[in-house]
């Protein structure tokens, strides 16, 4: 099995984010990056399949050069190889351009992959677009919110169980591989990162860098120019004004006070 796990360098602290005043894009330079938490669940899913059926797991990320460190973490967790896709021409990409770059990298380096496994969404931009878009570029079937998978190597198929939270159901599908999936964020709790493996990855320079010299993508298909959407304006979200009435004192009095207020508001019934 060849399993590709695209991962994102997410901004860890969403409250300390800076946006470029002109493009309104996230300023990634100088911001410490971390592996998008849900991508660890995706990597865990891939590693479990590898443990069971054999093969190799490759992580790749379109990220600034500082993304090398978290890619080493993915090797620390058990990935066999990692690719850092980095080039100034890729900057400012929306999800269409990002998914194009990721899909074309997979096509070039791993044309006979069996499975692409991605996170449900990222914690910083949370679009959940990428898995479907990668599938669209590669013209392949896909499925979101997967919690479990069982491969039939002979038939070249995979049985996927997925969880639809808002409908409260599990669905079971069978797909021919190759297929692209995203992993439900509350499934497949990730294993620990082995520090020694991570250090080994750093020392042996296991993360390969890929630039557009190798990919040769048309500059009009990537980065800002390859992005149909633009962030036209950003504004601070206005917080909902709150009453901020605080009661200090006897718990019985407090309880009465609260129940009376909630009853007056018409939101609880006695």
């Amino acid at each position, binding site marked *: 099995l060849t399993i590709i796990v695209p991962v994102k360098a997410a901004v860890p602290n*969403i*409250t300390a984010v800076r946006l470029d005043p002109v493009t*309104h894009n996230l300023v990634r330079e100088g911001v410490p990056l971390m592996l998008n*938490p849900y991508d660890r669940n995706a990597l865990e899913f891939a590693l479990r399949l590898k443990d069971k059926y054999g093969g190799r797991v490759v992580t790749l990320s379109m990220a600034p050069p500082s993304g090398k460190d978290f890619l080493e973490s993915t090797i620390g967790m058990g990935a066999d190889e990692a690719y850092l896709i980095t080039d100034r021409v890729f900057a400012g990409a*929306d999800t*269409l351009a990002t*998914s*194009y770059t990721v899909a074309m990298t997979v096509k070039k380096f791993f044309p006979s992959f069996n499975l692409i496994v991605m996170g449900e969404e990222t*914690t*910083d*931009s*949370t679009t*959940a*677009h990428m898995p*479907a878009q990668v*599938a*669209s570029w590669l013209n392949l*079937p*896909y*499925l979101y919110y997967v919690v479990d998978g069982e491969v039939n190597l002979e038939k070249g198929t995979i049985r996927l169980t997925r969880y639809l*939270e*808002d*409908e*409260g*159901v599990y669905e*079971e*599908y069978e*797909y*021919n591989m190759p*297929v692209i999936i995203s992993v439900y964020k509350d499934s497949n709790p990730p294993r620990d990162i082995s520090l020694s493996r991570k250090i080994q990855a750093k020392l042996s320079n296991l993360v390969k860098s890929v630039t557009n010299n190798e990919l040769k993508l*048309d500059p009009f*298909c990537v980065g800002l120019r390859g*992005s*149909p*959407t*633009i*962030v*036209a*304006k*950003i*504004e601070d*979200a206005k*917080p909902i004004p*709150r*009453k*901020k*009435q*605080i*009661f*200090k004192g006897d*718990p*019985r009095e407090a*309880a*009465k006070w609260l*129940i009376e*207020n*909630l009853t007056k508001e018409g*939101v*609880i019934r*006695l």
Partner: protein
Amino acid sequence: MSSARICPEWPQVNKSEYKGIWVYIEHQNGVIKDGSLQLIGKARELAAKINVDVSAVMIGHNLGDLVKEPIYYGADRVIYIDDEALSVYIPHLYASVIVNLVNKYKPEVVLFAATKRGRELAPYVANTLRAGITADCTDLDIDVKTRDLDQVRPTYGGNILAHIRTPNRRPQLASVRPNVFPTPPRDTNRKGEVIRESLDKLPKPNGSLLGVKPVIKGDSDLPPVEKADLVVVAGRGVAGPEGVKLLIELAKALGGTIGGSKKVTDAGWLPADRQIGQTGKTIRPTVYIGVGVSGAIQHIFGMKESKIIVAINSDPNAPIFEYADYGIVGDYRQVVQALLETLSSMRKTN
């Protein structure tokens, strides 16, 4: 038209050929999802501004009279495909069918409810058209001059609202969070056009649905956090499973359900699907009651749109009081006990 160079992987589009607003109608077991109906209402508003029609698009098998419903909720037209090949939902198959319809009719805007299935379907449709898409919008407007859709979405933990536009491509696609717009009234006297389309080329399914099973809720008989009007939320301050039990009692007494902070679900005192916050569920109940919750920003993200926020905390300086309508400073055991007793005695006298 503009001769600006574009990616050769993209088709040229002539913007002026694209007209009208589409709502993709998601349905399951013969019922249309609320999120789709709500979008018909919003689409009407947008359409009025630029003087175009609202079309509802529906695909599936054995649709029957369901195809008339979008008209009753305000659509001018329903375009549907009813075909056995669509009896099972397979994402890339459904998406390809919608792409074909878009290419035939050329609407300028296509809206999807951001349900789990909607979020799965919409980006494939957009990408195959090489068009832009904005995720999980909480508001939409349209620029009368440029006919650009102003797509508003909260980002970075909801602290920032981004306005996203797609000035050079058509159609403009967006998924919209359910329950941000009201459901329009159903009026069975409304008339509209119903067009049946047939399936043309369809990609190979390459997969099949083997079965569906409902989730068995082992943890409690209380409703999920995203479905309740009142949610009592346990924080680390309740100190253990016993404290959580007491809060479940309170939730039951108030006709609500129970949720937890990340510290509580991480500790296993409640299942992970009851976690409120940035990496858990976002809820907008009528009443949120946080007990022993400090009010970390990642938690606030998941509950700050609640109608009324109540906080019970022993620390008068806990950040959650900044977000509260009603706050009680005190030990949760005493306050919750008092609440339970007061409720039952007030109920007896009523």
